[in-house]
């Protein structure tokens, strides 16, 4: 039975950046020698790994798609090659599902539609933004100078730190007074939660999060 396979592997290029080429060419050779037909090669490029593999934080991703009959047993051959090769950090070989092909066609159709929809807009927009982009560039150049002035200003303020501290203490005291006053006015606080519960109840029918909030309120009370 003829199958469409997809194999993805991560190459360690920390020591030699050309390693990805040699490994991918080696895999291609293996596939072609054993009777497979290469359909597509997709180089994702150097990516950051989500977790360190063999103490490496970055890797070069290569994806190769090929068709072959299941009797040839190519995935097993590739598996052996991957295991022997030290430069391959991770590998994955799988049979491409019909559903995936359908999904790809769908996505391609979507992209085409999007591109067609965007093209007329982009052609019109591309002229306007060019004009719009050029004026702000001098402003951006001026921006780096302004922070230096700000730093100087802050230095001036640091020379006289004593009055600022006093003001901060005053503000803290005033804040404390405000909080105390809030606590004293209890009847106002009681009235607010009742309104919240009424607003929460309609949400409960749609989401579980609404019921969770209600639970938390009960615990608090």
């Amino acid at each position, binding site marked *: 039975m003829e199958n469409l396979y997809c194999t*993805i592997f*991560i190459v360690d290029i920390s020591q030699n950046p050309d390693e990805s080429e040699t490994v991918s060419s080696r895999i291609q050779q293996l596939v072609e020698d054993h009777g497979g037909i290469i359909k597509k090669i997709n180089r994702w490029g150097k990516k950051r*790994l*989500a*977790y360190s*593999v063999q103490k490496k934080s970055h*890797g070069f*991703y290569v994806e190769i798609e090929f068709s072959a009959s299941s009797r040839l047993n190519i995935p097993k051959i590739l598996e052996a090659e991957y295991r022997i090769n030290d430069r391959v*950090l*991770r590998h*994955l070989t*799988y049979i491409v*599902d019909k*559903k*995936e092909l*359908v*999904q790809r066609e*769908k996505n391609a159709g979507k992209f085409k539609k999007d591109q067609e929809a965007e093209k007329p807009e982009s052609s019109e927009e591309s002229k306007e933004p060019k004009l719009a982009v050029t004026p702000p560039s001098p402003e951006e150049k001026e921006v780096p100078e302004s922070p230096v002035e700000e730093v100087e200003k802050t230095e001036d303020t640091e020379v006289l730190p004593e009055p600022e501290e006093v003001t901060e203490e005053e503000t803290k005291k005033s804040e404390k007074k405000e909080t105390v006053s809030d606590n004293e006015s209890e009847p106002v606080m009681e009235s607010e939660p009742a309104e919240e519960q009424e607003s929460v109840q309609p949400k*409960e*029918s*749609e*989401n*579980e999060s609404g019921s969770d909030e209600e639970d938390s309120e009960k615990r608090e009370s």
Partner: protein
Amino acid sequence: MRQMRERRNTMLQRKKRVCRFCEGGDVFIDFRDEKRLVRFLTELGKIVPRRTSGNCNQHQRQLAKALKRARHLALIPFVSDIPR
């Protein structure tokens, strides 16, 4: 019987969540676009259960497969210690 019907109706009204993949009309969940998959992970990197994500059975199984493939290829962490 009326009470039973009313109860059923209330139950049905509560469960109105629809699978996101069904809404989008997706047939296959690709493990390559990790940005989309990350939504269905908890802060620690666990797979979110169906009862919270609201996925249908088919898509949840596809999603689990995709997440596991993505984990193997270091696109998604197995465990993320630092919550985002």
